[in-house]
């Protein structure tokens, strides 16, 4: 079965083209040239584009940040997380409450929201990750719903109406209230996320994650503490989500429980799986596709989710390594 699939993949022209592209980017020089050109282009883009493009691109950067955060949990550590939007909500509501109710400066809320995400991550992850990895999937699924119910029931979070009047960030005396400001803010955040992802991927911790993902027993026998290593992945990934949520809250100035529904968690997961779990360029590509696809095809409307679900199913059945898979690791095992 595995052999025949392998063969089918090599004669598949689409797959072949992707492999070629992949090989191309494996070399350092073209990769750096591409990266510098892309960065320059994206810095220049808002100067010559409409608000609509800026809005979409801001959304793309935002998705890149959250997808890379989820990728640490799902791709690097191999844990299924189905409530990522909840951590995003933790960040957004922390910033929202601190800035709209207590008038704290936006920048000071960022460390607080990271701390809140770490606490939430510990509360959910510590009891669950001691057990089987799969339990995490359903517990995070539950947590996503619980956070939504909690913010809806509490009065400090504005209940079902949501929270309004979140202050804009102020930088060197300038109020950041234009879409272009947030374009650059999310752009910088995305670059930081990409950088951190690469550093984590190549670090000792990153290698430990991949080892556990490939063979938990062997990793454990080699002296890796499986539980705490997984917990690191879960917490770091959650902190990414919370940070993105904080900036999102400042951008929107109003948030409601409906901004953090299960479906957002699924979309983020889809982006990670589509691009190729664990592979950073793949995940970025997945984030771009998932964000741009609905913009390009608004008329399919209600069928969108079914299409996504079918894509997810077919991907798992026929190309589990994603569009742009990791060279070793997940792909070699399948």
């Amino acid at each position: 079965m595995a052999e025949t699939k392998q063969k089918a993949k090599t004669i598949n022209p689409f797959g072949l083209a992707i492999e070629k592209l992949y090989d191309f980017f494996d070399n350092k020089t073209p990769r750096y040239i591409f990266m510098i050109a892309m960065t320059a282009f994206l810095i220049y883009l808002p100067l010559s584009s409409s608000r609509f493009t800026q809005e979409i691109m801001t959304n793309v950067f935002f998705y890149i940040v959250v997808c890379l955060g989820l990728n640490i949990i799902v791709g690097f550590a191999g844990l299924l997380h189905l409530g990522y939007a909840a951590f995003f909500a933790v960040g957004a509501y922390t910033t929202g409450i601190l800035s709209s109710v207590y008038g704290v400066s936006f920048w000071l809320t960022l460390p607080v929201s990271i701390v809140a995400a770490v606490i939430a991550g510990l509360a959910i992850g510590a009891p669950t990750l001691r057990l089987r990895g799969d339990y995490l999937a359903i517990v995070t699924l539950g947590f996503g719903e619980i956070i939504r119910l909690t913010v809806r029931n509490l009065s400090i979070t504005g209940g079902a109406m949501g929270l309004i009047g979140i202050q804009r960030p102020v930088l060197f005396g300038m109020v950041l209230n234009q879409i272009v400001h947030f374009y650059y803010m999310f752009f910088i955040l995305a670059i930081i996320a990409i950088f951190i992802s690469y550093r984590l991927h190549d670090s000792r911790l990153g290698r430990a994650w991949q080892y556990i993902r490939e063979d938990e027993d062997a990793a454990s026998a080699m002296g890796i503490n499986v539980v705490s290593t997984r917990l690191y992945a879960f917490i770091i990934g959650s902190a990414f989500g919370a940070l993105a949520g904080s900036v999102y809250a400042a951008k929107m100035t109003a948030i409601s429980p409906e901004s953090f529904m299960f479906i957002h968690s699924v979309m983020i997961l889809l982006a990670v799986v589509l691009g190729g779990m664990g592979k950073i360029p793949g995940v970025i590509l997945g984030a771009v596709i998932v964000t741009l696809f609905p913009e390009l095809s608004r008329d399919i409307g209600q069928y969108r989710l079914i299409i996504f679900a079918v894509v997810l199913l077919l991907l798992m059945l026929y190309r589990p390594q994603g569009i742009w898979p990791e060279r070793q690791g997940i792909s070699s095992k399948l």
Partner: protein
Amino acid sequence: MTAWEVFLQQLFNGLLVGSFYGLVAIGYSMVYGIIKLLNFAHADIYMSGAFCGLVLLGFLTPYIGNAWLGIVVSLLISMVAVGLLGVLIQRVAYRPMLKAPRLSILITALAVSMILYNTVMIITQGQYKPFTTGLVHESFYIGALRMTETRLVLLIAALALMLMLHLFITRTMYGKAMRAISLDRDTCQLMGINVYQIVAITFFVGSALAAAAGIMAGVYYGTVHFFMGFLIGLKAFTAAVIGGIGIIPGAMLGGLLLGLLEAFGTQIPFIGSQWRDVFSFVFLILFLIFKPNGLLGRIESERM
């Protein structure tokens, strides 16, 4: 109402809702026991069962004339239909993934779940549908307990289904094979058990019970909705964990217990009924911390 009446009322409510949780939890637990998969689609199978029953009721009741008979016939047909749906899902989405890494099969399960509920959402346009049965809800008293015929029959039916399942698992050849597979799949294959067939039967039975629970919940609450499976799926999972996942009597016990915990927990003055769902989730976390093997679970070192 006196405290005693409230107690009786909540006891009955808890048992009734708990028996729905138990019926769904059995499906989680059986599938988990046999192929170690958390079947996310199970909650949506429950929902599909409710809608299948609703459609059948609409067709059949006018012909049959009797409300109860109509419900029973639709219930049986839905159980078979949804059971087959479960087998189909197993064949298409799970069987090819059994040898793949765990993450992949969890993602396929999620995809199947999304396909099911989105399909129903599109068909029903996301509306709540009244579950019309033609039953008369006349209440009477048993001692201090206010009761309707419907609720009494539902509780008895749920318990009867659980009993039948228990007999199936303990007294038949197929039940024995299921228990054997959950202990050691590879050895069972060597012993000449058709593992794939038994897995298919497990999905059939689990899905049929979920469908029955869906229809019964429809009769009880009076409305059905495409997202009705989501929370009950979560609670059924909690129930399965409370009883010890993979253990079928545990799932029944866990379901009833969770129903009671919820019924009485929401009576605590500080915790209103809007916190009911949060409440049961807190229980899940507490159980995972303090008693991860569940009430009836064996202690064993887990291997992935």
